[in-house]
């Protein structure tokens, strides 16, 4: 009977808390995506050249893990509060707390496994999209492969299990401390009428907005130093939390002052709803805003660097192929013929660099263009400079 109860409860929870199930599926998919990337051979090819990507993905996975732990903890506690009366009924029927904990734990395991399984396929797609995005940023050619990483699945599974274990251990402790009365009357805690009486908190909204504007001005005018930037970022985080801490009071104050706007359409309802929802969820909303801001900033920086790289490449190496020769009168006919046969040539310029026995052009090439210095001398068997006496630059 208890197994039947557990299964049906899990089924009901999946329906009643669909928003959390969907969130968990998305989070699982993202984790699969990131963890899959760590072990992907396509990405390993990139890591060889750009080791920083491996570190970046590792950091992203680490942050996602914290989000998962927080989300699972929040979700499990939310369900516990919402269903506290039901647990009180179980206790009244004579169930022991340990039995109720077991039922609740099993229900959550079912939901966790379900969200993980549902996240596998979207996670696989996420991985392909992310890898594609990285290749696109680096202007590298990528062919979608059906490579599937069991290690990525295992790590995701491990993180989810850890998050659920942590949350359920806390729930077990909470259960232990609670009495039957706490369960029965827990769902009535929101029946208490609590109005946002601290109207002075609305000042936080103005402070936060002023700070965010200043922060943006400093960003666009490059007014931050390497050292001060961390202080400013800390201030931005505080400002975001302050904004949400003050918004509820701001709306309540606006309603109480009976401004014209509140009598228009359903504005009164909207403002009241906003005030109450923000008051209940200010910390969650603040945290989510910070995460979104971080993601947006991160992505902007990546795009900025990619764009910078392209611009610099076009500026410094505005050609596709460079062929060098140590003969001052080289015609490059042979090379041009090969290129004509194998590719569409747009244009080319031939330079005769050797002029008067000096080497300033060679020095420039050695120090500015990769590949000119590191030419391997067949005789010497080591990297050394090879005198370039003529070169041809070709555009495709």
């Amino acid at each position: 009977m208890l197994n039947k109860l557990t299964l049906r409860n899990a089924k009901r929870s999946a329906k009643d808390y669909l928003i959390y199930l969907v969130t968990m599926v998305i989070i699982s998919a993202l984790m699969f995506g990131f963890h899959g990337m760590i072990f992907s051979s396509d990405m390993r090819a990139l890591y060889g050249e750009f080791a920083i990507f491996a570190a970046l993905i590792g950091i992203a996975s680490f942050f996602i893990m914290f989000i998962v732990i927080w989300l699972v903890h929040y979700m499990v506690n939310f369900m516990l509060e919402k269903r506290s009366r039901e647990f009180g009924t179980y206790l009244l029927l004579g169930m022991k707390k340990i039995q109720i904990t077991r039922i609740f734990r099993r229900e959550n395991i079912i939901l966790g496994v379900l969200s993980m399984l549902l996240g596998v396929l979207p996670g696989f797609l996420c991985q392909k999209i992310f890898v594609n995005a990285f290749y696109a940023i680096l202007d590298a050619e990528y062919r979608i492969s059906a490579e599937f990483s069991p290690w990525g699945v295992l790590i995701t599974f491990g993180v989810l299990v850890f998050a659920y274990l942590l949350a359920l251990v806390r729930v077990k402790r909470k259960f232990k401390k609670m009495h039957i009365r706490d369960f029965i009357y827990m769902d009535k805690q929101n029946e208490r009428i609590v109005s946002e009486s601290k109207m002075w908190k609305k000042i936080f909204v103005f402070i936060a907005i002023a700070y965010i504007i200043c922060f943006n001005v400093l960003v666009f005018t490059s007014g931050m130093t390497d050292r001060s930037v961390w202080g400013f970022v800390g201030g931005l985080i505080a400002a975001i939390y302050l904004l949400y801490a003050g918004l509820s009071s701001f709306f309540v104050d606006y309603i109480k002052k009976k401004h014209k706007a509140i009598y228009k359409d359903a504005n009164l309802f909207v403002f009241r709803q906003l005030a109450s929802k923000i008051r209940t969820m200010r910390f969650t909303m603040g945290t989510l805003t910070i995460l979104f801001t971080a993601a947006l900033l991160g992505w902007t920086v990546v795009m900025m660097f990619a764009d910078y790289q392209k611009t610099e490449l076009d500026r410094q190496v505005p050609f596709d192929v460079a062929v060098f020769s140590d003969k001052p009168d080289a015609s490059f006919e042979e090379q041009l013929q090969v290129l004509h046969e194998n590719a569409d040539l747009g244009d080319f310029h031939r330079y005769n660099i050797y002029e008067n026995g000096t080497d300033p052009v060679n020095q420039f090439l050695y120090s500015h263009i990769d590949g000119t210095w590191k030419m391997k001398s067949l005789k010497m068997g080591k990297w050394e400079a090879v005198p370039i006496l003529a070169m041809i630059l070709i555009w495709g």
Partner: protein
Amino acid sequence: MLRYHNRINAEGNEKKMERLLYADKVEKYYGAKGNVTKALNRVEFEIIKGEFTGIMGASGSGKSTLLNVLSTIDSVTAGHIYFENTDITALKEEQLAAFRKEKLGFVFQDFNLLDTLTIEENITLAMTLRGSDKQETGRRIEEVMKQLGISEIRGKFPYEVSGGQKQRCACARAVVNNPMIIMADEPTGALDSKSAQMLLDTFITLNEEMDATILMVTHDAFSASYCKRILFLKDGEIFHELIRGGKSRRDFLNQILDVLSLTGGGVTNAE
């Protein structure tokens, strides 16, 4: 402690009756220093086996608090509660769980049925938790459902049946284990008048035919008139007691209304 004593029964005859519950100067305070609410103030009374007792009082008089401490949902601040000869205020959590399972049955205003189980399963769970075997469970459930007229809706989920049917299911769940006492907290509160009357008739059946002891908290005089005895609470204290004796239900109802007109609205003490 006296286990047997004299009490005038419903027919007006004095006879020896067995005491089931004894509340000994029970006190319950809420709040912390500086803002203490005295919900129960030295409440003392007893309940005899087979009695159908009502607790009445205005909102905030302490009647639900009293039911909560008697049913072990809440603990007392001072005093003792004896069930037969056991002081339940001294029991530990595990013992309380066993006590609730073995001795008590509950009926609430909002039914408290488990919505993922069918009507029959809700009743079955109460028995399986007690460790009853399959055959015994099946037989007993059949019997109780028949008595309470819910056999036809046995396969339905609580959200598929009416409020009255839900409450009869809650009654069936409460009596299926033959508890020592059924505690009902405003059981007619969420029902229409017809369903309420049916439920009260069910209580009479349980009390008279199945010899169940019932303790019902209500603020409704009509519901209270079905009881054999009523304790009136005001400001956390028992200030009056009515015994139906040989009176008709109509006369008893008038008597209850007279007492209620004296009490008006009650408020809790704040110290």
